[in-house]
C-alpha cells in the first residue's frame, strides 16, 4: 500500500536547484548545508536532507566532542590493548576475559527524553543500550543505571523518580536482565536535567563477534523487529512542514515508546540467528533510525547499498520517506544476509513471530541509493553521511569564577559525631537506595554473585569454571565542578577501586560524558578538561576506554549541570566464588584501614549537607590506587580478607556504617591512633573523602600474612577495630555508640519517606 506522495526525487532536485529547503529548522547550520550541497554537487532531496541533518547532529556525529575524544585512542598503549578485541567506534567495545570468552559493555545517556517523559525515556534508554550489546553478537547478561535527580524535596523530583525508576524496572525486568548496580544522586544542579545513564553488559565467545558492515555484493538487506512508526522523529514539527500532504497528523511525540516484550523476543531471535550463522552483518536501530543503519552498514562495508523504502513495514501509512528515514521507533534491527541463508533467516523470524521485510541488497557502486516506488530519492556516498560530518574546534576557556570557588575552602566541623553520622547516613545521597533497587530484578539468569549495595555488581560468565566479571559506575559532579580534570580522574579512580574492592582485576572502561552546552566556552572547557583527565588517568592505570557516549546541552535557562563524566569499569574474576562482599560477618575479625587520611572535606558529602561547594577536590594518586587495587585483589584471591569496602563519598563514617549494616553485624572501632598517625582530628578522620582508601576485615589467622603483604607493597595500613557480633552497634570508642537498629532506621527511612 505504497501511498503516493509528491516525492522530491534526485531528478527533481537536479531540475529545481533553487527550491528552498528547511535545513535550518532541521538543525543544520549554513556552512553545514553548503557542505552538503558541495558533496552532492546539487541541492539535496528532502530525504537526503533528513539523513544528513540527523546524522550530522551533535548526538550522532560528535562534531563538538570528536577533537577531544581522539585522546582516548591516542593515549592507548599497546599494553592497554592486550585484552581489547574491539575498540571504540563499533556499537560497543569487546574485551577478552580468557578461556575464549569475551565481554562487551557500554554506557549511554537518555537524559532529555527522560525529563520529557520519564517512564518511556528511561525504558527506551535501557532498550537502546541492550540492542547495542546484541548487535555485537552477545547475549546481554546484566544492566546498571547511574541516575541523577534534582533536589530530593523539589516539587518535580518525585515525578521523575517514580517515572524513571518504574521505566527502568518495567523495561529491564521484562527483558530478564538482572540489574546489578548503579547510582542514585540528588543535587539541585540536575533540576530540569535529570541524568539517566544506562549500562548493559553482554557475553560472547571470541568467534561470535559481529560487526556492523554490509559486505558481499548481492547480499540482501533486511529490516526486522517492530514496525516503523512516527515516534521519536527528531524535529517533529519541522518534519511535518516538510510533508506535502495536508491530511496527515501534524504533531508527533518526540520520545520513543518502548515495547520490552518485542525486545525480549528480538534478543532471543538474534541469538538464534547468530547461532545458526545466517547474518553477515548486523546493526541496531537507535538514534537516526534507518538513516543511521543504512549509511553506517554501507560505509563500513566494501561496496554500496540499494534500498526500496516502500518495503519498510509501517505502523502509520501516512509517514513520508523523510520521516521513515528519521523515525526512532524502538526494537528494530537491520541485517545483511546472503541469498542462500534467506530461507533459514525467515524460518527463525517465523518461529519467534518477528516481522521482517527485505529492503534491498549490497551493491558494488559505492553509493547508498534509496528508492521510493522505483524513483531515486537518495543517492549519496554513505561515508559522507556516516563519517564525514562536520568537526568543530569549539572555543573554550577556563571560567573566571573558578578561582573564587577554589579559594573558598570548607571550614566546618561538628562537635556531636554521633548526630553527624546519623545525619550523613540518612541524607539523600548516602541513604539506603533499597527503595529503588528493590524495584529491579537482581536474580534472573541465576548468575548474580554480587549486586547492590555491594561495591560492584558481579556476574558469573562460565558455570563450569566460575569465570566472571565485575562492574561499577561512578561520578562525582561536585568534584568535577571544582576541578574537571581531577574530577574525571577521581571518577575513574573510584570505579576502578570499587571493582578491585570486590576482588576483580580492572580491565577496561566505558564512559558517559554528561555536560551542558558546548557552545558555552566555559562548559566546553569543562568538557575538554574532563576528557583530558580521563584519558590521562586511563593511561596511568593501564585500562582503555572501549566505548561510550557524550551527552551535551544538559542545561536549562543558561545554567549547566555540574560536569558529570560517568565512568564504568569492568573487571575480571577467574572464579566469582572469590568475590568480596562489602560487609563483615565473623566475630573477632580485625578491621583494617588501608591508605592515608588527609583533611579533604572540600566537595564532600558533609560540605554538601552544609550547603557548601568550594575549594579543591581530594587529591588523586593513581599509583597509590594501583597498589591498593593489587592489595585488594591479591587478598581476595588468597583468602586473606572476608569483607572489603571502599572509602569514597561520606568517608570512613559512611564506609563503617555501610559495612556494619550490610549483614547487620556491629564493630568496635578506635580512631585515635589514626588521628595521631595522620595528624587529623576525629571529625576529619570520619568525614574526609581522601582517596586511595578502603576498609577490610581480616580473619585472625590471616593477619600476619595480610600485614606482610601491605608492608611489602609499602601501603599504609592501620588496624582500627574488630568485628563484634555480640553488640549490635557501631561503637567508635571514646566518641560514640550507635545501635545498628537506630542507624538502619535512619539509613533506610529517607527514600520511602519522600517517595513511597
Amino acid at each position: 500500500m505504497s501511498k503516493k506522495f509528491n516525492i522530491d526525487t534526485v531528478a527533481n532536485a537536479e531540475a529545481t536547484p533553487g527550491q528552498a529547503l528547511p535545513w535550518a529548522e532541521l538543525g543544520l547550520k549554513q556552512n553545514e548545508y553548503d557542505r552538503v550541497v558541495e558533496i552532492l554537487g546539487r541541492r539535496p532531496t528532502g530525504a537526503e536532507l533528513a539523513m544528513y541533518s540527523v546524522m550530522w547532529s551533535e548526538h550522532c556525529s560528535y562534531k563538538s566532542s570528536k577533537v577531544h575524544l581522539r585522546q582516548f585512542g591516542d593515549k592507548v598503549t599497546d599494553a592497554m590493548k592486550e585484552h581489547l578485541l574491539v575498540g571504540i567506534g563499533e556499537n560497543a567495545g569487546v574485551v577478552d576475559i580468557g578461556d575464549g570468552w569475551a565481554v562487551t559493555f557500554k554506557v549511554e545517556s537518555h537524559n532529555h527524553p527522560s525529563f520529557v517523559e520519564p517512564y518511556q525515556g528511561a525504558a527506551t534508554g535501557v532498550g537502546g543500550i541492550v540492542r547495542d550489546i546484541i548487535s555485537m553478537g552477545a547475549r546481554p547478561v546484566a544492566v546498571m543505571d547511574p541516575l541523577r535527580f534534582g533536589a530530593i524535596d523539589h516539587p518535580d523530583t518525585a515525578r521523575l523518580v517514580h517515572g524513571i525508576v518504574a521505566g527502568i524496572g518495567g523495561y529491564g525486568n521484562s527483558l530478564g536482565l538482572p540489574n546489578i548496580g548503579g547510582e542514585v544522586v540528588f543535587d539541585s544542579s540536575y533540576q530540569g536535567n535529570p541524568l539517566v545513564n544506562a549500562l548493559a553488559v553482554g557475553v560472547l565467545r571470541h568467534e561470535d563477534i559481529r560487526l556492523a558492515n554490509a559486505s558481499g555484493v548481492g547480499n540482501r538487506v533486511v529490516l526486522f523487529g517492530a514496525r516503523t512508526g512516527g515516534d521519536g522523529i527528531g524535529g517533529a514539527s519541522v518534519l511535518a512542514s516538510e510533508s506535502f500532504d495536508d491530511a496527515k497528523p501534524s504533531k508527533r511525540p518526540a520520545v520513543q515508546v518502548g515495547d520490552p516484550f518485542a525486545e525480549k523476543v528480538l534478543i532471543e531471535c538474534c541469538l538464534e540467528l547468530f547461532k545458526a550463522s545466517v547474518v553477515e552483518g548486523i546493526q541496531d536501530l537507535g538514534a537516526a533510525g534507518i538513516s543511521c543503519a543504512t549509511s553506517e552498514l554501507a560505509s563500513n562495508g566494501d561496496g554500496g547499498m540499494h534500498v526500496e523504502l516502500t518495503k519498510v513495514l509501517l505502523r502509520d501509512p501516512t509517514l513520508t520517506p523523510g520521516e521513515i528515514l528519521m523515525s526512532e521507533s524502538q526494537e528494530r534491527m537491520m541485517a545483511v544476509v546472503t541469498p542462500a541463508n534467506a530461507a533459514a533467516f525467515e524460518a527463525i523470524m517465523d518461529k519467534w513471530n518477528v516481522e521482517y521485510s527485505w529492503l534491498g541488497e549490497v551493491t558494488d557502486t559505492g553509493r547508498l541509493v534509496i528508492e521510493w516506488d522505483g524513483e531515486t530519492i537518495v543517492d549519496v556516498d554513505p561515508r559522507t553521511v556516516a563519517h564525514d560530518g562536520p568537526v568543530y574546534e569549539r572555543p573554550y576557556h577556563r571560567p573566571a569564577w573558578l578561582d573564587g570557588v577554589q579559594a573558598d575552602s570548607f571550614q566546618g566541623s561538628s562537635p556531636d559525631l554521633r548526630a553527624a553520622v546519623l545525619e550523613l547516613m540518612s541524607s539523600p545521597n548516602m541513604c539506603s537506595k533499597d527503595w529503588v533497587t528493590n524495584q529491579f530484578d537482581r536474580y534472573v539468569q541465576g548468575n548474580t554473585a554480587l549486586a547492590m549495595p555491594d561495591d560492584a555488581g558481579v556476574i558469573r560468565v562460565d558455570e563450569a569454571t566460575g569465570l566472571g566479571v565485575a562492574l561499577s559506575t561512578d561520578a562525582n559532579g561536585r568534584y568535577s565542578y571544582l576541578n574537571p580534570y581531577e574530577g574525571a580522574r577521581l571518577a575513574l579512580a573510584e570505579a576502578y577501586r570499587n571493582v578491585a574492592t570486590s576482588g576483580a582485576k580492572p580491565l577496561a572502561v566505558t564512559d558517559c560524558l554528561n555536560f551542558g552546552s558546548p557552545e558555552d566556552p566555559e562548559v566546553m572547557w569543562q568538557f575538554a578538561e574532563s576528557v583530558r583527565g580521563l584519558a590521562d588517568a586511563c593511561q596511568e592505570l593501564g585500562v582503555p576506554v572501549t566505548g561510550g557516549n557524550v551527552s551535551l546541552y544538559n542545561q536549562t535557562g543558561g545554567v549547566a549541570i555540574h560536569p558529570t563524566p560517568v565512568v564504568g569499569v569492568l573487571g575480571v574474576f577467574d572464579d566469582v566464588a572469590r568475590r568480596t562482599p562489602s560487609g563483615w560477618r565473623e566475630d573477632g575479625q580485625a578491621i583494617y584501614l588501608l591508605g592515608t587520611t588527609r583533611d579533604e572535606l572540600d566537595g564532600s558529602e558533609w560540605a554538601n549537607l552544609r550547603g557548601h561547594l568550594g575549594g579543591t577536590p581530594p587529591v588523586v594518586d593513581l599509583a597509590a590506587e594501583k597498589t591498593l587495587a593489587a592489595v585488594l585483589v591479591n587478598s581476595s584471591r588468597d583468602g586473606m580478607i572476608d569483607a572489603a569496602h571502599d572509602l569514597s563519598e561520606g568517608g570512613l563514617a559512611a564506609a563503617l556504617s555501610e559495612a556494619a549494616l550490610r549483614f547487620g553485624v556491629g564493630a568496635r572501632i578506635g580512631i585515635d591512633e589514626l588521628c595521631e598517625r595522620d595528624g587529623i582530628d576525629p571529625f576529619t578522620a570520619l568525614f574526609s573523602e581522601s582517596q586511595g582508601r578502603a576498609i577490610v576485615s581480616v580473619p585472625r589467622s590471616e593477619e600476619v600474612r595480610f600485614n606482610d603483604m601491605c608492608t611489602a607493597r609499602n601501603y599504609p595500613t592501620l588496624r582500627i577495630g574488630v568485628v563484634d557480633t555480640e553488640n549490635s552497634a557501631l561503637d567508635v570508642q571514646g566518641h560514640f555508640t550507635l545501635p545498628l537498629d537506630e542507624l538502619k532506621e535512619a539509613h533506610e527511612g529517607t527514600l520511602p519517606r519522600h517517595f513511597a
Partner: protein
Amino acid sequence: MSVETPLIGDFQPFPSASAEGSLAGVRVGVVTFPGTLDDRDAMRAVRLAGGTAISLWHGDHDLRGVDAVIIPGGFSYGDYLRAGAISRFAPLMEQITAAATGGPGALPVLGICNGFQVLTEAHLLPGSMIKNNSLHFLCRDQRLRVENADTLWTSDYAAGEEIVVPLKNQDGQFVADERTLDELEGEGRVVFRYVRENPNGSRRDIAGISNAAGNVVGLMPHPEHAVEPGFGPDSSARGEVDLRGGTDGLGIFTSVLKKLVG
C-alpha cells in the same frame, strides 16, 4: 518445531548435583513462551536437584514424554493484557491441561510467578493475581511457611517448615472470593504462606496453592533462585549461610524428582 533456546553465555554442561543416579532419569519439561525469562534458571534448578531438564516450546503439540512440567516466570506475551491471559491458549497448554487433570498419575505441574498466573488463567488453579498493593515491582528475599508438605512438589519439606526464597513481581497479589479461600484452607490446598510480612496484600497471606489432587502447584516466589550456593539469597530459614548461600528452594525440585522415582 522444537529448537533449544540459544545458548550464548550460559548453559555450560553442568554436572548433576545428586549422587542418586536414578533421579537423572526423571525428565522435567520447562516451558518457554515468548517473553518467558526464568526458563534457563528453572532448568538449572532441575539439573542441580539431580533431574534432567527438557526445554519445551509453547507452540509445540507434544510434551516430549516428560514426567513433570514447570511453567517458569517472566512476562509471557508481555503481559500487556492480563498476566497469563494469552499464554493459556498456547498449543502446549492444551496438552498440559489435559495431562494435569487426568486423574491418578496425572502430570505434576509447577507454575512459578508468571507460571502461576498462567495456571490460574487456564483454570488449573483457582483465584487470580492483581497488582501488588504497593503498585511497584518488588524484588526481595521472602520468608515463607510450607503449609502443606504432602503435595508432589513439597514432600521434601516438613509441614510448618519455613524457607527463604526470592520474590520478584509486579502482579503478585493473590485474590479469590471468600468461598474459594475457605475451600482452599479447608482442603489444605494453601501450600505456601508469607510469614513475618505480607509483601503484596495477598489474601490470607497466601503465596502458593495446589489443586485438589495435589499434582498442580503454583506459587509467586521463585524457588529456582534459591538452589545454588553463591547465587541465592543472603539468608536461609535453616540458619547461617555463606554470602548468597540460601538454597531453601531446592526442596521443591528434589520433591518431585523423588516422588517420580519412588
